């Protein structure tokens, strides 16, 4: 699925990723943990093609296709989805309009027919109910005036509607209380499947109690400095990142 080799990237001329390598096979969930400033968000933006994140060396492929050569929307059409740490507010665009525009743009890019309005609304009702999102909220401007938890649920709703193949969750647990965390985790777990893979980026181990990863990687100083099973997350929770930060320095 995702294969990253020796990735170097700069932001504003400063090197943030310094030779990051990572393999996430289809069907698996991998967690990336690391201290603040390690490059976790940079990794998510580099993989999704945000302006200002310059790749200077290395490769990133999805099922063998060079991701880095594609525009952000082309990556999305191939199934790359980023759940934002800070979801954007889009004044004037109802959530439903935003999601339908995105879904149809992806479908057109893949040469598929656009989804009909009734079929879209049925799907939206179903997915919103599963995430305990009031359907009326989807008629309001996307994320405008939503609480932190509502925004995160809205990200998961978009994920469920767009049905991506490779999911990146950037600090999805931040700002969530325990009930919201469980709803979000259930939504994410419902998307686990043999032909999907996920990268769960988190600072804390808490989220991984609900979304059990197949592997945990420690990102420090712009590189993966340790990898292990789910137990690695618990060990980090107990002992902190200091050891790895020293190793990366």
């Amino acid at each position: 699925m995702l294969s990253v080799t020796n990735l170097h990237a700069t932001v504003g001329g400063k090197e943030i990723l310094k030779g990051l390598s990572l393999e996430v096979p289809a069907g698996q969930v991998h967690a990336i943990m690391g201290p603040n400033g390690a490059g976790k968000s940079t990794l998510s933006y580099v993989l999704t093609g945000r302006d200002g994140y310059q790749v200077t060396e290395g490769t990133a492929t999805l099922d063998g296709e060079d991701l880095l050569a594609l525009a952000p929307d082309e990556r999305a059409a191939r199934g790359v989805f980023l759940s934002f740490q800070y979801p954007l507010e889009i004044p004037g665009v109802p959530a439903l309009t935003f999601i339908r525009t995105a879904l149809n743009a992806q479908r057109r890019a893949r040469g598929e027919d656009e989804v009909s309005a009734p079929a879209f609304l049925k799907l939206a009702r179903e997915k919103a109910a599963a995430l305990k999102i009031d359907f009326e909220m989807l008629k309001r401007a996307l994320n405008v005036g939503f609480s932190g938890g509502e925004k995160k649920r809205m990200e998961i709703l978009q994920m469920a509607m767009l049905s991506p193949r490779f999911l990146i969750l950037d600090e999805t647990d931040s700002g969530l209380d325990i009930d919201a965390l469980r709803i979000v985790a259930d939504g994410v777990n419902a998307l686990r499947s043999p032909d999907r893979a996920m990268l769960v980026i988190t600072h804390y181990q808490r989220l991984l109690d609900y979304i059990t990863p197949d592997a945990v990687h420690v990102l420090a100083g712009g590189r993966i400095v340790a990898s292990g099973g789910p137990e690695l997350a618990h060990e980090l929770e107990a002992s902190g990142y200091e050891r790895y930060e020293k190793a990366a320095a």
Partner: protein
Amino acid sequence: MSLSTAIRDRDVAQLPSRRDEDWRWTDLRGLIRMLPPPSAPVEGDLGEGVFDELVRRKIVVANGRGEALIEVPAGETAWVALRFISKSDGAHAASARVTVGAGATLHLFETYEGEGGYVAQTTLTFALAEGAAVERVVLAADSPGGVSVSQAEVSLAAKADFAQTVVTSGGRRQRIETRVAHPGGHASLRLDGVYLLADKAHADLTTVVTHDGVDGTTEQLTKGVVRDQARGVFQGRIIVAEGADRTDAKMGHHAVILSDKAEVDAKPELEIYADDVACAHGNTVGALDEDALFYARQRGMNQAEAHALLTEAFIGQVIDRIDQDEARDVVRAWAAERLRA
């Protein structure tokens, strides 16, 4: 100094120029070296207007021929489509007089439709009696080669309600000006505008509101999207005269510039001579929000789709304020077509 006298006398010296403070961004003297001859009458079918289906009465003024008279008797309601059509390379002046009686309501849907390199002046007067209500929706689709100046003088009586939305795609040089004499007395005024400019289009939305009595409200929201080498001008002046206490006036102008060569000039002015007033204004000019653009693209929209979605949303906040549902839909569709072009 006005375009109408210049056209009448075929004298370019009478054109407003950049030396007139009010016209410094919409210089006609420097643009027009020679006034063209008077426009000939328009031959043939003038087609349907975009608002024709919403109204009972349709008035067409083509190449300045005829004056439009709209009189709504007290207590009655009228729906009128008023089309100013310019189809020539000549010069012409058109006019309209609108009177709305006490407690009467007028829904006026006004369009400017152009073809050719004309020079056109349109002069309108609106007189609203006590408790009269007017919703004026203006769609200005002048031709890229046309020079057009539309000037409206509005006088309100107490408890009158005048709500205006001007949506324009500009012209070679275009100005849409509205001057309102506001008596206070619980009369309310809304003056909204949208300019969507591409290529070398120029649009100037100028408004002057004079609050002369206590207890008046004015609300104003103008938004613009300019790209290529287009130029948008917004001049909004609200004067609150001495003694016009408890005036509540809000003015907002916000523009998005989508290219390095596009330009927006804005001059919001509040002149307040009364003591007890609530006045606010906001003015912003900038690019589309990069974060929001990336967010939309990460969800699968290409650059053009993301631009269109975000700019439609941006101006949608103005269009949403049109009261009349069907007219709002016509305007929204017209604007969307221009943003997606």
